[in-house]
């Protein structure tokens, strides 16, 4: 259950024993072929635990818990389950095994432009996206100007979203999601887009949020970014959590495995 309780500072004594995210033996499987063929029997059967032919476990036996205020970098090669793990924590995908308990609201920077509607204006889109993430109209009103300033998009408020450049689209989307004031922030390489100046601005915003006690999950291939933001690392390989350690140790291990 997600609640929007105020963020507990990372240093409070109670936070040590109250993980904000607790993942226990989580597993999720996908079909190897793109087409999700299903038999009519599947439609009524509850989830079967055994693996059927043509399926593979994208993640399995993953367990960890996260204390409030931690910044965690997820490391691994492509296709090792990093983004899937993020989606499980965001609860936009459901695990086939195990449990994922997220005890606070989540601001997901995953496919951030996905919620924006081409035919609606920037203004309507801001209210729609923030609203779907649980903000009331008055709350959005209070933050609206700041969001628009951050996105540097003031002249385009009533322009249909489809007429914005791709850079502007990412900017406004980032500005909205990063202003949700949720205790947990999930970042999935969205910052690879946009120009250098705006990227730096986003990074400063993320640092600001971290300083304010937010918990963060960060997926990236960029070693420098990982070391900059994260204190702890999760190293995923072949769908399993291989190492859960301080970020430097995790990156060294990853480099030893693949870059040598």
């Amino acid at each position, binding site marked *: 259950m997600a609640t929007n309780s105020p963020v507990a500072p990372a240093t409070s004594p109670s936070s040590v024993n109250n993980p904000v995210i607790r993942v226990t033996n989580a597993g*999720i499987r996908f079909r190897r072929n793109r087409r999700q063929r299903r038999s009519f029997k599947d*439609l*009524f059967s509850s989830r079967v635990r055994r693996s059927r032919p043509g399926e593979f476990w994208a993640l399995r036996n993953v367990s960890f818990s996260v204390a409030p205020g931690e910044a965690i970098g997820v490391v691994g090669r492509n296709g090792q389950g990093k983004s899937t793990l993020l989606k499980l924590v965001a609860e936009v995908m459901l695990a086939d095994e195990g449990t994922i308990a997220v005890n606070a609201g989540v601001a997901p920077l995953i496919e951030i432009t996905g919620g924006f*509607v081409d035919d609606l204006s920037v203004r309507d889109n801001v209210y729609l996206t923030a609203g779907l993430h*649980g903000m009331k109209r008055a709350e959005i009103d209070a933050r609206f100007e700041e969001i628009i300033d951050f996105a540097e998009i003031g002249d385009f408020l009533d322009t249909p979203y489809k007429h914005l450049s791709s850079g502007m689209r990412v900017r406004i989307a980032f500005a909205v999601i990063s202003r949700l004031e949720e205790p947990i922030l999930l970042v999935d390489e969205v910052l690879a887009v946009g120009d250098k100046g705006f990227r730096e601005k986003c990074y400063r915003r993320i640092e600001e949020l971290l300083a304010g006690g937010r918990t963060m999950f960060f997926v990236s291939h960029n070693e420098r970014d990982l070391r900059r933001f994260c204190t702890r690392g999760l190293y995923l390989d072949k769908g399993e959590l291989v190492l859960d350690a301080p970020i430097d140790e995790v990156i060294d291990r990853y480099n030893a495995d693949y870059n040598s």
Partner: protein
Amino acid sequence: MTAAVPARHEWSAFGRYRHSLWLLTSRDLKVRYSTSFLGYFWSILDPLVMATIYWFVFTQVFNRGVGHDPYILFLLTGLLPWMWFTGAVSDTTRAFLKESKLIRSTKIPRTIWVLRLVLSKGIEFLASIPVIAVFAIFTGATLHWEVVYSLLAILLQTMLIAGIGFIVAPLVVFFRDLERAVKLTLRFMFYASPIIYSLQDLGDLETLGAFNPLSGIFSLYRASFFPQDLDWFAVVISAAISVVLLAIGILVFRRNERAVLKGI
């Protein structure tokens, strides 16, 4: 810097659900009406043109042996609820596919993706009721107290469409062909439902026709102007089928939710 920002609102689960459902429903309506010049009138124009065509064919070309007088009103009281049914059901085939990006990035209860379509088409239906009023005044028809049954009809129709939507929406993700099969079935259903005729006109097939869940629902709507059309046998069957379909729908939806999220 963030000191002036008020604290975030605490939602109850139901409040949050209603908030999200309403946001997406009003978004659908806003997109539909802001992108076209005639906006609202398109949703009325479609059934109006259809009603005019059938009225012309069955009263001017052929000698009408079905339905009741005034026939144009008889047609509209069937056509407008039909537009709700067919519009919502055919939209549910794309409920997940069209919104896949949003579903992959936003955590809201997944049933909203279906219910918002039932609701937005339902609101369009309610907004088209003045058309019936205009024609009723124009033709001098009397409104009977049976008009209260329309509320029951709306309830049953909502359940029926939601049930069908909960079955169709997830299945289309796995069987894309179902989308076209649904469109074809809807076209067949138009003629198999008492829209241009009434259930009594079916003669020997009347009992069979009552097993179409739309028959009872339409007879409830029509009772407002044509109380002789009210057929409680058909209504009971409609109610039973609607409840059963909704139960099956909820089951199918629940069982397939995680596979849908992987498949889109």
